[in-house]
């Protein structure tokens, strides 16, 4: 069995034992989508591009899962491992230096997809699942968004000196992204300043790359390209910054 497969299998087991992961990646998006999707009625559709608000949020919240994995779970995990010398132990045991990052990328994407399925199951039971207008583009948005944000997480984890700093910076990046980039009020309800801020957040583009093709509001290709650029830049960054 290759080093990567071993690491992935072990890391998947371990992240599922982490209370922070279970709370942030699984519980938080489910609880918030149930609350916020039920807070608006069909009369508010004009603020949601004339889409039923519950459907708008169900289609948006996959990006919240993606952000929770990429901005909170991965950086804390990576920085904590480096701080405690776990990465040194892996390297001393002959695991190639890049193998942990590669394994973490696979684990992050896998966890995002599993948590997304759980979220959709719960949300569909409560609000129904909106029909998917362009399934291929929507799935591409989810997968590329998951890869890009896990990659951002690796970059943050590589740059932060320890797990506590990674958690602080991760949460600081997560909540504005969550509130302005997909999990909070719709763009039409924001002030123009907040809309400008939202437009520069990478998570906003992930949300659009998923929501637009899903709800038939647009192709989402432009947003997909931005997400791809985020992936390239962050991957280049963590490949240079990652250390034992």
């Amino acid at each position, binding site marked *: *069995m290759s080093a990567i497969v*071993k*690491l992935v299998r*072990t890391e998947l*087991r*371990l992240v599922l*034992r*982490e209370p922070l992961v279970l709370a942030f990646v699984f519980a938080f998006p489910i609880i918030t989508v149930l609350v916020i999707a039920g807070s608006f009625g069909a009369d508010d559709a004009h603020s949601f591009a004339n889409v039923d608000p519950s459907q708008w949020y169900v289609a948006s919240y996959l990006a919240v899962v993606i952000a929770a994995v990429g901005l909170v779970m991965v950086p804390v995990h990576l920085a904590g*491992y480096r701080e*405690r*010398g*776990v990465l*040194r*132990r892996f*390297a*001393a*045991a*002959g*695991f*190639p230096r890049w193998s942990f990052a590669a394994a973490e990328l696979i684990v992050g994407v896998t966890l995002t997809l599993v948590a997304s399925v759980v979220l959709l199951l719960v949300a569909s039971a409560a609000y129904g699942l909106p029909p998917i207008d362009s399934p291929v583009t929507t799935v591409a948005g989810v997968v590329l968004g998951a890869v890009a944000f896990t990659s951002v997480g690796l970059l943050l984890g590589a740059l932060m000196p320890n797990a506590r700093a990674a958690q602080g910076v991760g949460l600081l990046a997560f909540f504005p992204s969550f509130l302005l980039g997909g999990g909070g009020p719709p763009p039409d309800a924001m002030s123009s300043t907040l809309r400008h801020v939202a437009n520069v957040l990478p998570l906003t583009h992930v949300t659009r790359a998923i929501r637009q093709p899903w709800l038939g509001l647009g192709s989402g290709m432009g947003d997909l390209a931005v997400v791809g650029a985020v992936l390239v830049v962050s991957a280049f960054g963590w490949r240079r910054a990652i250390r*034992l």
Partner: protein
Amino acid sequence: MGEPVVEVHQLCKRYGERTVVDHVDLEIAAGEIVGLLGSNGAGKTTTVECISGLRRPDAGSVRVLGLDPQVDGSTLRTLVGSQLQDSALPDRLRVAEAIELFRDPRIQGSRAAVDGLLVAFGLAEHRRRAFSALSGGQRQRLFLVLALLNRPRLVILDELTQGLDPAARRDVWDAIRSLRDGGTTVLLVTHYMDEAEALCDRVAVMHGGRVLDVGTPARLVDRHAPWATVRFDMTAGGVPIDCLRAVEGVSYVRQAGAQVEVRGDRQMIAHLCCALVRGGEVPADLSVVMPDLEEAVIALLAGSDERALEPTGGAR
């Protein structure tokens, strides 16, 4: 000496402007236990990290089993077992999972060997226990098990017995001796001189990034602490103190009440005993104290510091 397992030649490593390892030469033959001693910041761990392939040397060469750790890391993975200072396992990783993660399934019979290791190190009943739930001693023993899992030809142990109680230290020492008896080469980094003296065939003493001296513990003691101390109670009418001072090889004599302490070179012991016999009385409580490795290393390090402070400068 057997074939070389580790060959370090003119190894240099710098962190920024600071030279941490400065032209280190070290050779370890197959089946040897070699100790790396020195004060904190001497460059021991960095040297070991270069040998392990964790750090790239700035200059010089490192060969392990004839391979370059920077290039042939994956080949060396199963040939070298490492236990490194300041390293850990994930908190929630269980003992059995750690073993599966680090075990190479291509090695035949490794599963049975693992069971034997777990029993030998008292971890058999802790297979399902998480790393965070292990005591300090159990963690160190697990690291040793992980280092030995794949029957490596070279084992690198950095501060292995730090934090262990005396009984656990002795158990680990026995395990290291049985490794050597099985033909495994061991590179041992330690602060404990008694550990180095008890286990090591040879010892390299490092200071300021350089190897000051290499040799067997006995040879290092001979070279750097070539003295002996004789103590006894002097009763009235014994050999006068001035006569003791005149004995060949004596460097000083100190008397506190009836207790006399005589220090000098090793031949002094014979001359002193002759003088005591000639004086008509051999004290019943006479004891000879020979310096140990700790005194030799302290003397070597102190000499190195003094040479460094000399106006002409330079440790060499």
